[in-house]
């Protein structure tokens, strides 16, 4: 696992995103739409990991705040991803507090767990993971691991950025992500995961 350093922050479309955000801040509505489309898939995925089915509602709240506070933001494309993730997370936590719902455990999860897992076909190389399956596994992780994994994998944040979103030390977040991924790898079946063996996930940075 990388050191969570700079190389991870740069995603393929970050340049485009940064430019769109800048133009949107100057009033360009189309640019704002571009930014929305670039950010929303990951944001929604992240929120589904946090709150499950109510992700869309929470995302709507988040975008209202993002749109309103857009002028305050300073940073590049990667920074925008971190900024929006922070806003989304706050909205999610508010939502959870209001609903007094625990962040993990839904009926969806229960159903999925009854399905045969990939390890029932050991020879099959796992080429994909179903969304339901992935979601249920992630949401079953301890909260800190789930969040660390989601920010890293779905939002694509590096160590320092994820730590900032979560308000924790980078080392703790790195450890949580490691453990979460290791557990997921084990649950998805050692032989089934392409490329990597779970053991390598145990490396510390």
């Amino acid at each position, binding site marked *: 696992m990388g050191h969570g350093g700079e190389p991870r922050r740069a995603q393929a479309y970050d340049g485009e995103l940064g430019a769109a955000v800048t133009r949107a801040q100057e009033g360009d509505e189309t640019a704002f739409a571009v930014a929305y489309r670039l950010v929303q898939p990951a944001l929604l995925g992240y929120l589904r990991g946090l709150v499950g089915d109510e992700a869309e509602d929470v995302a709507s709240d988040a975008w209202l705040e993002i749109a309103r506070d857009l002028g305050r933001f300073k940073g590049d494309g990667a920074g925008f991803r971190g900024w929006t993730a922070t806003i989304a997370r706050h909205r999610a936590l508010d939502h959870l507090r209001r609903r007094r719902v625990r962040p993990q455990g839904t009926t969806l999860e229960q159903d999925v767990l009854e399905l045969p897992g990939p390890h029932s076909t050991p020879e099959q190389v796992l080429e994909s993971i179903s969304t339901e399956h992935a979601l249920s596994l992630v949401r079953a992780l301890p909260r800190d691991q789930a969040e660390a994994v989601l920010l890293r994998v779905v939002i694509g944040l590096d160590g320092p950025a994820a730590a900032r979103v979560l308000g924790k030390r980078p080392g703790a977040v790195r450890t949580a992500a490691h453990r979460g991924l290791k557990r997921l790898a084990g649950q998805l079946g050692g032989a089934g995961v392409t490329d*990597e063996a779970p053991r390598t996930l145990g490396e510390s940075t």
Partner: protein
Amino acid sequence: MGELPSGDGHTGPRRAHPGRPGPEPGPGTGAGTGLETLLAAALRVDHVDAEAEQRAVRAFRAARLAGTHREARTRRRDDWRPRGLRGGRSLRTTLAVLLAGFTLGGVAFAAIGGPDSASRGAGDGPRPAGTPSDAGPGTRRPGAADAPPPAASAGPGRPEAVGGTVVRCRAYVRAKQHGEGLLDVLRQRLADVAGGEKKVDGYCARTLLKAREGAEGGREGAGEDTTGAPAVPDLPAVPTAPDVPVPVPTGAPADPTGAPPLPPTVPGEDGDGEGSGDGVTGNLPDPDQGQDQDGDQARGGVTEDVVPPDTAVPGPGTGGTEDE
């Protein structure tokens, strides 16, 4: 790929496509990348809800109209500029730099041998062996902490505090006890003086004993027993005074190559007064020390081999140190 229905599990491959608007988990992260890619592909929502997008755009318009964007003040939480602009050095980097600085300072301190030997002009400075060459941070580091304390402790009460070999011997013994990394370095350095690595233990035993005795003002350290002690394996006191004063070969001021032969006895003159004084202070023994064995030339005994003249030997009877 963007048209896939949302959230459904697909059995077909759903790896992230380059054109897909979605961040990849991170290139070159090594372990776990495959898993991360799979998870990302599974968890990100492919489709974009047009209605949701419109809601967001409307909110954007409203804020723009209200001038909110123009007047917006960036709070700390809103500043996500890359670290180089904001941060500068991390705390870890600062601490690492400080630690390196202290380490090097400790090395320098050890090389000088501490205030005592420095004041005595102890001859570690111009030592040809090249202290700097020893001062590799890797090996020195564990010892750096050790060297100053011995020097310091040698200072107050110790009359001779030679800071050179005595300190080194002390550190060597300590290093042996604790198995520290500096052991090898010390052993090599002392081997020059002791005449071989195997002889270092005995040499140190005698040296330190002499130092101790010297502190008590024993002049008679001056070599009674030549038989004594080369065999002394370890420091704890060897009764037979292992003073084997090595008399300087007459005439030749302890030429580096010439090993002063083991003297049958010679205690006779102690030229410790002056001789030792010189011996200790100067790296090169003076010519007039011809006779004087104990003081400076006493390299702790059995030096059959090369005896670097500049080893500030802690004179056996330590007479020297006191005198200075």
